[in-house]
């Protein structure tokens, strides 16, 4: 089996600042992988580079949705085209469409996989109508799955914080991704909500077959969910492996806890 996402030697410079330094990463089909590291380590920048918001200074990003070895390089694609190829993401600082309802937010996610144009919208022929019904139905189903069905017609801004985070996931799901990139999905959630999120992410992987790469600071969630973990600091990969490996990796511990255990390293 070939990896579905493969990042090779990625480097990202902002002026003189090197935010990502020669990073390698891969994800296999059906994996849940976590990317952890101290604040400012370059994790979100990494997401932005993969999803086309930034263009990496050097290195390659390949995707291979079917895992059959037919790789596609997606470095220079615009964000919307990356999404269309099946990479969906959520945002650390929630970016919902605040003037729209919950359902409409998810319906926007269907944009990538539907195609009615201006003329279709004006004349609303049978195919447009069918597509429109499909969008509504699909969006509602996703909301039910994510447990937000009771909010359908509420404005997205009026939702409780935890629900907004889940709505971001719902919206990303609607783009029919093979890989979901979650940027701190549990940030600001209470323990109960985090538990539910844990179950939800598991469910997405097990039932929908979606692979997941997540950035997270909640170590309990990371350890319980992920099969493999990458640790970055100052843009460099400093550790990689199973949760057990990471827990006992002295370099990682040093990066997280500081200098006092230097002599152990």
């Amino acid at each position, binding site marked *: 089996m070939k990896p579905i996402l493969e990042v090779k030697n990625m480097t990202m410079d*902002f002026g003189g600042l090197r935010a990502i330094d020669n990073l390698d990463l891969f994800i296999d089909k059906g994996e849940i992988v976590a990317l952890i590291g101290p604040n400012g380590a370059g994790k979100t920048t990494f997401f*932005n580079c993969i999803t086309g918001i930034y263009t990496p200074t050097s290195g390659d990003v390949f995707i291979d949705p079917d895992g059959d070895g037919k790789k596609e390089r997606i470095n220079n694609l615009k964000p919307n085209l990356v999404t269309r190829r099946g990479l969906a993401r959520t945002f650390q600082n929630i970016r919902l469409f605040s003037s729209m309802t919950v359902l409409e937010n998810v319906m926007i996610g269907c944009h990538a996989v539907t195609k009615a144009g201006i003329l279709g919208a004006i004349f609303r022929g049978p195919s447009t109508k069918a597509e429109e019904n499909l969008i509504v139905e699909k969006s509602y189903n996703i909301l039910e799955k994510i447990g937000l069905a009771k909010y359908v017609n509420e404005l997205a801004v009026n939702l409780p914080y935890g629900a907004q985070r889940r709505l971001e996931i719902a919206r990303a799901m609607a783009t029919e991704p093979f890989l979901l990139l979650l940027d701190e999905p549990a940030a600001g959630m209470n323990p109960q909500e985090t538990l539910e999120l844990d179950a939800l992410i598991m469910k997405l992987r097990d039932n929908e077959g979606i692979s997941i790469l997540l950035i997270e600071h909640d170590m309990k969630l990371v350890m319980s969910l992920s099969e493999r973990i990458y640790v970055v600091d100052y843009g460099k990969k400093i550790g990689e492996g199973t949760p057990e490996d990471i827990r006992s990796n002295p370099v990682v511990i040093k990066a997280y806890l500081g200098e006092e255990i230097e002599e152990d390293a």
Partner: protein
Amino acid sequence: MDFHITYMADDSHNRRDESRFKNIYLLRLSYKTGSRTGLNMDLEYFSQLFFGGLTRGSIYALIALGYTMVYGIIELINFAHGEIYMIGAFTALIVSSVLTLFGMPVLAVVVLAGMAAVVYSCSYGYTMEKIAYKPLRNAPRLSALISAIGMSLFLQNYVLLAQTSDFLPFPSLIPDFEFWEPYAHILTSPELVILITTVVVMILLTFLIKFTKIGKAMRATSQDKMMASLLGINVDRVISVTFVVGSATAAIGGILIASHIGQINFYMGFIAGIKAFVAAVLGGIGSIPGAVLGSLVLGWTESFFTGYISSDYEDVFAFLFLVLILIFRPSGILGRSQAQKV
């Protein structure tokens, strides 16, 4: 009977646009062309254009400073800024006429009218901010911009209704200096005064921003409003001061230009404002040296364009310039480009 009188062509619109308004919006440079035969004449013509452009650029700079300072602090294009400049010119005219009729000596009239113009422009700038922008501090930027457009429309028509829609002759406050006579064919005395005033204003402003407490507060506020207020800076006050300082420089520009051109009307602020805005963007909006540099570049290009190519399309050229800058270098010559935080 004529039934074709409609809204879109009625006289209140024509009033603004008849071609007699053309090129009097801001500056009419009187080129003493003569017979341009020899190299000397060409050189003289060139230097006239050069200094004409410099004067023009200085005026733009005085207005552009207000734009750039306000934008630097609250990220608002203060559409009504040109109107402040117009109000400065009107106040100067009214006050100086009244004082002259009272029989005051010329020097006293000039000083008092200038002071009145600055005081009133500042007051208008201050009040405008309190009414049209402060309540919108947390609203979407589009709202504040629309409010600014409304303010501009209001102030123009306020002056139109309270005063007149006609052009008013403006006395030449600046005399022709005798000592400058030998150089006057290249740079006239009023132009000289404009240049000197601009330089003095720039120096004062730089001093204010670099070395005073309020200047430091302004810089802090423009970096991060929230943080500045947490550190005990009264952000509202800083914003008010910014409007007041910007208005003062605009008023000085208004008086200088009005006395240079010799006439004013309620509409003079609009094109001047837009061009100053072009200059501010060209230099990099939010940057004070940028505003000055952008103004000079715009002044020169306009001057040479009209002098060597065509004066018909002068304003088209300015707008085209703006469009091109925004497309190819939206951050301007000295501006810092900001990456959006995701």
